[in-house]
């Protein structure tokens, strides 16, 4: 019989990496499976000023690299692969990967969330041609150009400020008349001479011949449509959970977020969820990391109560 891990963690962002760290420090054997980039969404955030202790050079990629190294230093295994299915009828759970499978006593789901789309015509066709969801990845291209940032949360305002380091002008388009973002960020944005704000408006269409040339904006109060010339559209209108493969396994909200209790237990014994993928009030690196640590300790308790030593 092959190796049976105490904890198998799906997703290598801050929730998964923290779960790995806490599991391995509790002397549980643990493995993290990541299909894309280690660090998840946090690895595409250049400025991570709200993570305690990250005052100097608070870049997402650096912090995530250190989180992974720390989990590995205590014995967590990290593998790059994709989960394609499960076998959960036995007490020992099986996770099917593309070419192999993993057996574990517990599973921690830490698959996170991904950016939501605008759903406007032209958005999909012009992706990578001026439509972007990652300022860190693509800001360079807009040096000395003008861009629109859509959204009103922390991500939108923070990334708009970041974009001013490259673009000549950044126009924030927000569907309400005030921001949801942290006040300190909003003050910084308003004080920034390169930032303009268009309130009460949504993007109706992105257009351009092979490359973004402009957007059609609709004022949600007057329904008036205006044409706005721009070279780029950065979309930060929230996120959606990456939870499709768990649909028939654990209980979820209408929007597909996994429901847990405050020990991160899902509706299935021995399966936990942590980070952005679960129903919660605040989706941040710090709350993801906290979830991960709680899930690992809850998994340890579950193993103590359900498996012989």
């Amino acid at each position, binding site marked *: 019989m092959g190796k049976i891990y105490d904890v198998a963690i799906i997703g290598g962002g801050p929730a998964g990496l923290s779960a790995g760290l806490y599991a391995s420090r509790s002397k549980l054997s643990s493995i993290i499976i990541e*299909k*894309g*980039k*280690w*660090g998840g969404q946090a*690895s*595409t955030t*250049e400025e991570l000023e709200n993570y305690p202790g990250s005052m100097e050079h608070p870049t997402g*990629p650096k912090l995530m690299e250190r989180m992974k190294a720390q989990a590995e230093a205590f014995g967590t295994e990290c593998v790059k692969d*994709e989960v394609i299915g499960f076998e959960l009828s036995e007490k020992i759970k099986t996770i099917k990967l593309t070419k192999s499978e993993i057996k574990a006593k517990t599973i921690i789901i830490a698959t996170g969330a*991904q950016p939501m789309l605008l759903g406007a015509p032209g958005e999909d066709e012009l*992706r*990578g*041609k*001026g*439509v*972007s*969801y*990652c300022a*860190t*990845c*693509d*800001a*360079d*291209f*807009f*040096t000395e150009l003008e861009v629109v940032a859509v959204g009103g949360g922390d991500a939108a305002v923070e990334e708009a400020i970041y974009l001013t380091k490259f673009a000549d002008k950044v126009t924030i388009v927000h569907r309400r008349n005030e921001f949801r973002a942290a006040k300190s960020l909003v003050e910084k944005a308003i004080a920034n001479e390169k930032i303009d704000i268009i309130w009460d408006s949504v993007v109706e269409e992105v257009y351009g011949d*092979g*490359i*973004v040339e402009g957007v059609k904006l609709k004022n949600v109060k007057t329904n008036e449509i205006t044409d706005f010339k721009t070279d*780029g559209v950065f979309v930060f209108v929230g996120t959606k959970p990456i939870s499709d493969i768990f649909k028939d396994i654990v209980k979820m909200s209408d929007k597909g977020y996994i429901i847990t209790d405050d020990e991160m237990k899902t509706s299935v014994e021995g399966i936990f969820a942590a980070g952005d993928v679960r129903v919660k009030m605040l989706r941040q690196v710090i709350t993801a990391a906290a979830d991960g640590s709680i899930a690992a300790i809850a998994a340890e308790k579950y193993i103590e109560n359900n498996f012989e030593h």
Partner: protein
Amino acid sequence: MLELNKDNFDAEVIQAEGTILVDFWGTKCEPCKALIPDVERLAEQYDGKIKIAKLNTTENRRLAMAQKVMGLPTFVIYKNGEKQKEISGAENCTPETIENLIKEFV
């Protein structure tokens, strides 16, 4: 793997005969960097069947923009210098989708 830049892009891609897959990446694009080992593996696996090259857009921004690439990661298939198909964005570019793109043209 072949590295493209403004000096060799024309000869290797635009004037070249046959099919080439170009990986447009950048030094600050974490999803792009995460894909590079997979792209290198595919380049070895499909050696002799399709040419696979990478282009660092951080160093060759104007060249990328002239190819209408303004977002990363982006993978473009050229055949006899003409763009055939491309995929763009971290969610759309995975080892599987890149391999499928290659298979479509070999």
